[in-house]
């Protein structure tokens, strides 16, 4: 079993993780007509907003309760109420998703009661707008947890409880945050090719897919899951949760409505996609269409063409737990080995299944220390400087990716996404190949560390 090593130091040097409220905001952005509302200072919101904009290169309708010094001392309910009313008046959103921040959580107010009070007192004014609360202090968890909490909260608050008549062709999909916009588009198209209808929650493919809205001023998210879809999740035949962090929302949905769920810890790789396609076959009663079979065949071919470049390669990954699992199993499945695995939190059960000797809970400083001698670094854009210092190529994955275009349009799941990943990585390896020189030949050289001339790094391990 994989050993999970706790943090080695008090400081985080080049943090791997961003924080929980951002994950929750992302999830709310996958609902149509939604506005995520940070309950905190304008500053936190502004920072998170900029980071989201830099990642998606899109308009992000993130809002703030603009807690100031006085409110911080006296309590934030007035600000929360004013923010909600202002948003309602001006933009009439379908959903306001409140994400708490460290500032208000430190005060330890009872937000749930605050919200109930607001909704009760302002029932008439707020009709037609769902208001969902996700408790997401920065000092706990990371994006994964924030995302899952927001989805759980939406199901708890919005989905109609109780057993309901099931629609035989409808399935509910709860994807992890690490699926790209292209993944979601592709997932939907795949499900539909079996004659099924997919309700995907959250669905970032509508709102953050890089389209230009026809109607100019859109103060909320556009596209995404509708509130009505969330209400009616209980009529699905089957729920499919993707990634371990979506187990909890799936369980809550099952508890509320009895809809059974199947969990895919990853949708990357041939085997997991086979399992997914097989499930769609059995739910729909249809065999896989020619298009899907052709994609499988193309993936097989990519496995053949690509494995050669992966064999024996050493990979260093820093990612949140489920993405770490997704990527690590992809790499080891191609014959590479995981030389370093760093993650954000030690609590996820998926970590035990990561195909590495050990997983270090830590930061990019840890990654930099552990990655010497690796052939590839895999982490978000902030890993670029470590990659440069180590002289190792970087494959960008996770959040944020702000220094490349189109990261949301890259497929990473199912047959086609796995194929594309293989090509991407194999091409990185091909681009950074080094030929031997007469001087480099030496039978007694340790071939396990291909290049000893790399500069030392500043982290100790």
């Amino acid at each position, binding site marked *: 079993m994989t050993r999970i090593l706790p943090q080695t130091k*008090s400081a985080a040097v080049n943090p791997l993780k961003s924080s929980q409220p951002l994950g929750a905001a992302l999830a709310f952005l996958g609902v149509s007509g939604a506005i995520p509302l940070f309950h905190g200072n304008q500053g936190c919101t*502004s920072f998170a907003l900029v980071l989201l904009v830099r990642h998606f290169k899109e308009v992000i309708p993130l809002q703030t309760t*603009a807690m100031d010094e006085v409110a911080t001392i006296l309590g934030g309910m007035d600000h929360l109420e004013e923010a909600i009313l202002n948003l309602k008046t001006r933009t009439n959103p379908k959903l306001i998703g409140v994400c708490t921040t460290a500032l208000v959580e430190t005060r330890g107010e009872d937000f749930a009661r605050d919200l109930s009070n607001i909704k009760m007192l302002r029932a008439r004014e707020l009709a037609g707008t769902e208001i969902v609360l996700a408790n997401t202090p920065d000092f706990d968890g990371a994006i994964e947890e924030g995302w899952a909490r927001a989805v759980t909260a939406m199901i708890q608050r919005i989905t109609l409880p109780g057993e309901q008549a099931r629609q035989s062709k409808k399935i509910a999909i709860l994807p992890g945050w690490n699926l790209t916009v292209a993944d979601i588009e592709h997932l939907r198209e795949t499900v539909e090719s079996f004659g099924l209808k997919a309700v995907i929650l959250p669905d970032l493919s509508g709102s953050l897919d890089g389209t230009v809205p026809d109607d100019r001023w859109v103060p909320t998210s556009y596209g995404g899951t509708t509130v009505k879809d969330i209400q009616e999740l209980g009529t699905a035949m089957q729920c499919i949760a993707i990634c371990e962090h979506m187990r909890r929302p799936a369980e809550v949905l099952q508890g509320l409505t009895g809809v059974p769920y199947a969990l895919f810890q990853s949708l990357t790789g041939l085997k997991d996609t086979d399992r997914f396609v097989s499930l769609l076959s059995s739910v729909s009663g249809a065999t896989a269409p020619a298009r899907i079979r052709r994609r499988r065949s193309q993936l097989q071919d990519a496995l053949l063409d690509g494995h050669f470049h992966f064999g024996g390669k050493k990979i260093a990954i820093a990612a949140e737990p489920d993405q770490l699992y997704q990527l690590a199993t992809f790499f080891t499945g191609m014959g590479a080995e995981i030389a370093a695995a760093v993650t954000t939190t030690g609590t996820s059960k998926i970590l035990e299944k990561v195909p590495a000797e050990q997983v270090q809970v830590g930061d990019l400083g840890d990654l930099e220390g552990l990655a010497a001698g690796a052939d590839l670094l895999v982490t978000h854009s902030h890993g670029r400087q470590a990659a440069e210092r180590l002289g190792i190529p970087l494959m960008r994955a996770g959040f944020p990716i702000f220094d490349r275009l189109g990261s949301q349009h890259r497929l990473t799941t199912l047959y086609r996404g796995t194929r594309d990943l293989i090509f991407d990585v194999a091409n990185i390896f091909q681009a950074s190949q080094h030929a031997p020189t007469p001087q480099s030949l030496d039978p007694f050289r340790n071939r396990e560390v291909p290049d000893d001339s790399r500069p030392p790094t500043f982290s100790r391990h």
Partner: protein
Amino acid sequence: MSLDYENDSALHEKLIGEVLSQYPDKSAKRRKKHLSVATSGDQPGQEGKALSECDVKSNIKSIPGVMTIRGCAYAGSKGVVWGPVKDMVHISHGPVGCGHYSWSQRRNYYVGLTGIDTFVTLQFTSDFQEKDIVFGGDKKLEKVIDEIEELFPLNKGISVQSECPIGLIGDDIEAVSRKKAKEHEKTIVPVRCEGFRGVSQSLGHHIANDSIRDWVFDKTEVEFEAGPYDVNVVGDYNIGGDAWATRILLEEVGLRVVGNWSGDATLAEVERAPKAKLNLIHCYRSMNYICRHMEEKYGIPWMEYNFFGPSQIEASLREIAKHFGPEIVDKTEAVIAKYRPLVDAVIAKYQPRLEGKTVMLYVGGLRPRHVITAYEDLGMRIVGTGYEFAHNDDYQRTGHYVNKGTLIYDDVTGYELEKFIEGIRPDLVGSGIKEKYPVQKMGIPFRQMHSWDYSGPYHGYDGFAIFARDMDLAINNPVWDLYDAPWKKKVAPPMAVAAE
């Protein structure tokens, strides 16, 4: 050269009215104070004269649920003032979010061995967990400082940048700083820049300035041989290399730049600042406090300058030279003459491509006024401008830069700004990353004027050539011809139009 033009006051007044009509009464009343139309362009130097009839009311609280572009005190201290001091480690003290979000958001260039003796692009946080909130974080801070000393022994000092929870849980970071400073014999600066203080990043600037005064000045023996032409450049953060371009000019006219705050700065430069002969302020907003303090305590005069575009460069160089007397004045005239052909060449190349193009600005610091003339040097017109986090003295300083009828907006919301842009449809908008995508989706060219959009420098003569090229590239890119602005579409399905 200030172009002689007048903007459309009536249109601008109407736009303000339309925007406000969408708010609930209470909010409208508050927002009204931030929006205005300039009455007349004043003459340079007439500081303090009213900018417009109603004037904008700035530096007041944000409204819940009305997101603007502003940041917080932490952003002002860590992100602006302290972050670029390169040989110090700046701890984002509290939960991970603030530090992670703000990481590498500004392009403060520097030279040095990153991770060895230089730390600007690294990010340090004490990564508070729930137990730190509950039991207090002072012990953790001590550990973090010790770890930093061990991992990065070549650091010259540490600053502790407080995030919101610090101010709420009653930690005594001053005590920890004092203790650890003594132990490690290093400068350690606690900064009380919790995000909830003040209404924007602006108070963070002030707090950071004060922390320099209280925790750096006069705290160590500074060995430094002062000279007659020593100046500090204050408030140039070396975005895209600006400070380097500035230094070239000042040295050419015979001055010695002994400190640059805080782009590419060392702690030593900050410590020896009080020995200079003159403080040259670039970003008045973020650094006027410490300059006023130095004036008061050490008798160092200060003056503002503007190195955007040849008109202002020449004016500023002459102003500066006057301060130092004939020798420097002569050199300055020689330098100006030397660069004239370059300026003429740049203008000859770009003015025909940019003449008459209209620009709206919305930025922070001093840029809403300082860059105006650079555009005008290229024959362009400023039709609107505004500050993210200005105070009233900023707007007073803006008066002589803007022409009659220019639309002025303070701490504008995304909604308001878009409405103004849609109404005016300028040829270029210069603002920040948050505005970039909505503006471009309107079919309007855009440049980031905080970070120079990955380009720069824009200061000095070198910068002017780059500035002119960048504006040309943005405005004259052929994609704008392809772009059917959505409001120009017929009601027909979009394909019908697209397919012609």
